[in-house]
């Protein structure tokens, strides 16, 4: 027998005496209690337990239902990429090819990034105009395979530049990690051969991006030429100090014109080589995937809100719990003291 159920043997006599003289219940009390308990017991409709047993599943069900509704709504809608494509199709002109125009006094910039699938193909960059002075600036980003090929490609690019009559302005070659490296070449190439250079460079690796900027220099060149002619006419009629001043101005303008011609004669090509392939964009999730993502997102948001509410309410809950247990301990102590006195 466990000590929980047995009573110490020392008290057998007194326990036996107590049990032998157990008081009997009066018959009147039996009748009284029978009358009380025979009456039908009213069950309250709303108890805390009933309300909680209904409310908790209801709130959980509503949360899941909301997440499902949002998920289904996402599944019904077309994918954002599809929408973008549709809008692009509607808004683009039928012939949306790269076809820059070169008007005097305007600057035409062409910048685009080629998809990896367009790799070793021919670059479709606009070429320089043959009858106008232009500042031609092209940038190519190529992917090469490993540092060995990076070095070889750099050498080949330099040889091509020299072969086409160009020269190297600067080179920045770096291999910070094993197998990884970049080379940034700034090249000047005669504008008449820049297209051939770009075609040649494009074959050195996989084109990751290509950008061409063309600024028109013909208008400032014409303006400088007109001013020089006007000043030359004035200088022919001028004498003394005035003539000297005009001749100095003419000399300055001629230097300016030479500079413009020099800029127009050579194109700048920035050739960037890298061994680091850009990360492939993750494939767009399907309808089911998007629906699941959105539903899980809503559920997570609900959990975050619930956690936030719990964090905000926790000090008050702690106070309530402490008050409840403190009050219960106090009442128990008071009851015990009352029983000790009675």
């Amino acid at each position, binding site marked *: 027998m466990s000590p929980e159920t047995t009573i110490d043997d020392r008290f057998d006599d007194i326990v036996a005496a107590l049990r032998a003289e157990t008081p009997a219940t009066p018959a009147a009390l039996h009748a009284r209690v029978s009358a*009380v308990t025979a009456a039908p017991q009213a069950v309250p409709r709303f108890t805390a337990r009933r309300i909680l047993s209904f409310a908790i599943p209801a709130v959980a069900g509503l949360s899941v239902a909301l997440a499902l509704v949002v998920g289904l709504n996402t599944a019904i809608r077309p994918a954002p990429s599809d929408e973008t494509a549709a809008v692009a199709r509607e808004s683009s002109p039928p012939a949306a090819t790269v076809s820059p125009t070169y008007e005097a006094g305007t600057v035409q910039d062409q910048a685009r990034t080629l998809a990896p699938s367009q790799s070793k193909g021919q670059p479709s960059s606009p070429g320089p105009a043959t009858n106008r002075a232009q500042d031609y600036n092209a940038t190519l980003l190529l992917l090469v395979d490993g540092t060995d090929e990076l070095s070889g490609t750099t050498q080949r690019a330099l040889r091509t530049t020299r072969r086409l009559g160009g020269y190297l302005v600067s080179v920045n070659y770096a291999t910070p990690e094993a197998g990884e490296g970049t080379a940034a070449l700034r090249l000047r190439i005669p504008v008449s051969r820049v297209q051939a250079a770009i075609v040649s460079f494009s074959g050195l690796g996989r084109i990751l991006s290509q950008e061409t900027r063309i600024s028109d220099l013909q208008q400032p060149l014409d303006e400088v030429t007109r001013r020089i002619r006007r000043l030359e006419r004035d200088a022919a009629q001028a004498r003394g100090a005035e003539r000297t001043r005009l001749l100095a101005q003419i000399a300055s303008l001629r230097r300016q014109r030479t500079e413009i011609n020099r800029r127009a004669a050579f194109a700048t090509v920035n050739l960037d080589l890298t061994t680091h392939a850009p990360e492939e964009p993750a494939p767009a999730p399907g309808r089911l995937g998007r629906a699941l993502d959105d539903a899980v997102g809503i559920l997570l948001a609900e959990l975050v809100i619930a956690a936030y509410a719990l964090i905000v309410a926790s000090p008050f809950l702690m106070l309530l719990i402490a008050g409840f247990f403190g009050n219960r301990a106090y009442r128990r102590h008071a009851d015990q003291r009352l029983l000790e006195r009675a």
Partner: protein
Amino acid sequence: MTPSLADAAEKHLDDVYRYVLYLTRDPQAAEDLAAETFERAVRLWHRFDPARGSERTWLCQIARTAALDHLRSEERRRRREQRYAGMAEREAERLVEPVSPWLREALGALSAADREVIALRVILDLDASSAGRVLGITPTACTTRLSRALEKLERNARTARVA
């Protein structure tokens, strides 16, 4: 399946009555408190959960609350009477037959707290766990409290027999 309250009353009325009689030592008050216990039980029966304890334990908890309310009001009444009469009322020995005079005297010298644990563990034969649940203490504390109460009762009984 939860039994009906009428069945529980039939089965445990004696225990409830004996428990409150030991607590109050007043047969009339014990009758009233036992009846009140079942009136309260009628109102609270929907909250009874057999998984959390037996019907007897649950009824004893209700009886205890009723008895404590009674003892509190009795204490207030006695204080009022003492204040106005200027004398302490001598508590009569009110446990009725068949309790022997020596046992009645020995029990009368105990506090209600001691009589309560004796009633639960000896008269109602509850185990320490159930009795501890009624008293709001651990089974170990209940066993300790019972031993002390029985020691006191034995001492009082010896004195009463000699007298």
